[in-house]
């Protein structure tokens, strides 16, 4: 079930009143939310709900065992068992074929013959986000940041809660479980914020991301050598805007929907293309993933405690694995390693902006950062390494085509997409404040008008969000 559909509108129209009617019966409310979250997931593949259930029950039990153990070695062994289970499920569904093909290629290079079977089971949607949530829970219990919950329904809900189930934001167990132990307070509903996040998300996804993808980006990444250098340059910019508008739209709607049900989700984006360094970019882009990688991968690897070289190694490993998390493809690993290398170079040259200082003028820092990020997106978007190579090769050397195939609609979407990066955040807050104080007629008129306008300019159908595949 996609957010920008009538199915979801009907689904939410049913879930919203029942959730609040059950608010004084917190356990019943949580079971209800678990049930509807499983229904939400079952719209893709009903049989894969078993993965959700198994993951929740296993992690619930492991966390209880870790909490009961007093000896550190036993706790650590249980933690490793949990990590192996969660990563094993992820690897089996998402990476097995990739690793099998890589092993066979390596064997062939070494002159050996290796035959491994391939499995066509399909990738369970949301499996990566599910893994992040599950690992966050058992690791925090191991670190004694969090008491293991004795309520199975809390973990079932934490893993499956439909607004964040498919594409985040990644909500920490500590932050989510403290919200499930008590009834929600209706006064926590921020109506203006939720309405603007939802209608803004619909606009970004249905209009900006969709038209950029279908009318321009998909074509230039399919056959880059048939396009001019100008088109390929604009294609990079367009994809940067498309993926931002696509992913941030999902998360915005998720935050708005969760808030209407009485739950708080963390911010995940903060105008990432304003970044003045790659480090700054990762503090603005997919912020919950950045924090997750920092706390559960970079720090356990040693962080910056082991000296300069060890820090650089840890950054590269973290970003390389962060890239691989996005998909079983060499292009994602390259994308992650490029970001890792850029973070290392920034540290070497003192360009991180730490201490409020940059060595470069702000405009130069922005230009370099933005173009680096766009360039790295080429590897992220290209279906294969060969396509990425062809894209960059044609961009540098030039192809046979001249002029541009950018239509006026695409040009407008490019401008509108970039505006999302430059409009000051407090403008939106002022708008939300105006909305919160407005009459009920205005409160209804604003979302009605914006969604009607989205419908006027919408394409025939809405493709899935990009991050669903991760």
């Amino acid at each position, binding site marked *: 079930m996609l957010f920008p559909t*009538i199915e979801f509108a009907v689904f*939410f*129209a049913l879930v*919203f*009143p029942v959730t609040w009617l059950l608010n004084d019966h917190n356990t019943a409310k949580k079971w209800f939310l678990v049930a509807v979250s499983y229904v939400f997931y079952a719209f893709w593949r009903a049989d894969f709900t078993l993965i959700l259930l198994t993951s929740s029950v296993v992690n619930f039990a492991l966390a209880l065992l870790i909490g009961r153990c007093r000896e550190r070695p036993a706790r650590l062994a249980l933690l490793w068992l949990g990590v192996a289970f969660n990563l094993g499920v992820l690897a089996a569904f998402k990476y097995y074929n990739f690793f099998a093909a890589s092993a066979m290629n390596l064997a062939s290079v070494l002159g050996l013959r290796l035959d491994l079977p391939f499995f066509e089971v399909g990738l369970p949607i949301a499996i990566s986000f599910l893994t992040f949530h599950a690992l966050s829970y058992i690791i925090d219990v191991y670190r004694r940041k969090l008491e293991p919950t004795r309520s199975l329904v809390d973990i079932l809900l934490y893993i499956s809660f439909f607004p964040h189930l498919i594409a985040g934001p990644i*909500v*920490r167990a*500590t*932050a989510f479980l403290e919200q499930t132990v008590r009834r929600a307070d209706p006064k*926590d*509903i*921020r*109506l203006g*914020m939720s*309405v603007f996040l939802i209608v803004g998300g619909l606009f970004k996804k249905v209009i900006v991301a969709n038209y950029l993808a279908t009318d321009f980006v998909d074509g230039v990444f399919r056959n880059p050598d048939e396009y001019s250098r100008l088109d390929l340059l604009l294609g990079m910019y367009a994809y940067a805007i498309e993926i931002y508008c696509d992913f941030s739209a999902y998360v915005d709607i998720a935050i708005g929907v969760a*808030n*209407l049900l009485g739950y*708080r*989700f*963390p*911010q995940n984006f*903060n105008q990432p293309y304003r970044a*003045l360094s790659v*480090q*700054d970019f990762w*503090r*603005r882009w997919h912020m*919950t993933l950045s*924090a*997750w990688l*920092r*706390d559960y991968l970079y720090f356990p690897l040693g962080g910056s405690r082991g000296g300069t070289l060890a820090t650089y190694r840890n950054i590269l490993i973290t970003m390389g694995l962060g890239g691989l998390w996005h998909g079983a493809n060499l292009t994602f690993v390259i994308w992650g390693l490029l970001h890792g290398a850029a973070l290392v170079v920034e540290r070497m040259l003192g360009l*991180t*902006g*730490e*201490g*409020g200082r*940059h060595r*470069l003028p*702000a405009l130069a820092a922005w230009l370099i950062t933005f173009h680096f990020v766009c360039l790295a997106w080429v590897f992220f978007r290209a279906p294969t390494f060969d396509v990425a190579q062809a894209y960059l090769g044609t961009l540098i050397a030039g192809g046979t085509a001249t002029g541009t195939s950018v*239509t*006026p*609609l695409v040009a407008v979407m490019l401008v509108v997409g970039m505006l999302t990066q430059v409009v000051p955040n407090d403008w939106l*807050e002022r708008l*939300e*404040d105006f909305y*919160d*104080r407005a009459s*009920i007629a205005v*409160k*209804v008129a604003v*979302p*009605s008008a914006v*969604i*009607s306008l989205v*419908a*006027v*300019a919408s*394409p*025939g159908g809405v493709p899935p969000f990009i991050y669903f595949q991760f």
Partner: protein
Amino acid sequence: MRKRKEPALSLPDPDHIPLGPGRPQMRPLRTASVVIYATLLVLALAVPRGLVNWAKNFEPNPAQAALLHAAEAVQSLSQRLRLDRPYARGRALFLRLTGKRDD
């Protein structure tokens, strides 16, 4: 070397999520409910074609027939009251300006 105007950003505390910006409503549930259901009603009447197309997408069965019948009734009411006009005109203008066609 040039000083940056703002201090470098840091990631928010992942273990504590603050309440979002804005102010609570006087009667938050009542207001939110009115906004949600009134907006859905306005959209059903203003863009009834979407509802009809959606109902047509399901496998034909008695429930789908009932849903389609209801959607067509909403469309008919909308047409009678001319509530679908703004959408129809806006859509026609958008298609003319962009050279796109309805599926």
